[in-house]
């Protein structure tokens, strides 16, 4: 029940922020508001395919994969090796953060541990194998290697601490 309230509270807050800011924007500057809505629509069109694919994927993940299997690979008793599996997955995959949260929550309800889910989200956002070429070109080899290496290590430490506390 409290979870139910919690999730609708977030929905309410997000929508209130959007509406309040939109009204403020319309009063202040109509042209800029038009621009913002255009960007909003473009962003929506751009992310829609990914969202639909992830939603379908989550359905199949929870509908087809037996709960035991997820639990055996990245469940509570797998400990650090389980978190390492998701850390590698998170580093290699390129999923927008926005969509990674529903995916992470589906893994949780599928039997994954908090530790694995935390390491998945943190490496997904901080370590970028796919964006590596751009980073190398702009930031140089030294900084790129160091940043990704430390991000990977710290992501696992963050996940460990979260697994202990939660």
């Amino acid at each position: 029940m409290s979870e139910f309230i919690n999730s609708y509270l977030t929905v309410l807050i997000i929508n209130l922020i959007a509406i309040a800011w939109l009204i403020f924007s319309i009063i202040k500057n109509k042209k800029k508001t038009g621009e913002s809505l255009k960007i909003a629509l473009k962003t929506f069109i751009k992310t829609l395919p990914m969202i639909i694919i992830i939603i379908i994927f989550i359905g199949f993940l929870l509908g087809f994969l037996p709960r035991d299997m997820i639990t055996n690979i990245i469940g509570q008793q797998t400990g650090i090796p389980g978190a390492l599996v998701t850390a590698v997955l998170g580093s290699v995959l390129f999923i927008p953060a926005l969509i990674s949260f529903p995916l992470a929550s589906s893994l949780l309800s599928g039997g994954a541990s908090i530790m694995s889910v935390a390491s998945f989200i943190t490496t997904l956002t901080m370590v970028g194998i796919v964006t590596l070429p751009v980073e190398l070109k702009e930031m140089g080899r030294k900084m790129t290697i160091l940043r990704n290496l430390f991000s990977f290590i710290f992501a696992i430490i963050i996940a460990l601490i979260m697994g202990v506390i939660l």
Partner: protein
Amino acid sequence: MNHTVTNKQNEKIKQKKSLIRDYIIMGAVLAASTIILAIFPDKSEPVLTVSKNYFLELVMILPALMIIIGLFSAWVPKEFVVKHMGKSSGIKGTAVAFVLGMLPTGPLYIAFPMAAALLKKGAKISNIIIFISAWACIKLPQELVEIQFLGIKFTLLRLSLTIVFIILMGIIIEKIIDITEKKNIKPEKIFTVWSKDSRNPG
């Protein structure tokens, strides 16, 4: 002038192509999943129920989220970020790097050229690392989605730990780069130097 114009056009064509590709993939996934569910009719009920629930949860927040992202990019231009990152230093510089990184101003690959430009302008390495990392993993509107799906406790704990470790990482990388630059060591040797150094601090 002409050169930049054609570059922009090329960029637009590229984006359009990848958009079309994404929609084709979506169509293929939809078709494939329909076929699979037709083969396993007993699975179709649990799969569709789960997908429907996640879909409904996303539909309630996505339009608002997109509007917030749009408002942000129209009201907080990228030039603003560059202007404020360059001159601040110390704790204030770190805070500025965090806040500016957290604003939803676009995907990560936009942050790299900005960070490179800031580095040339003389911004501190630690702040650059903090800026990139905050940009990568603490985006304000996205965090609302994290609360929605993973709960406030999970989100707040992960965020505060991430902030602490991002600062730590900025400081460590700055130290490593300072040391290696002084001794003029090639990148391949960084890690051996670093492990020696951590054994005998000072």
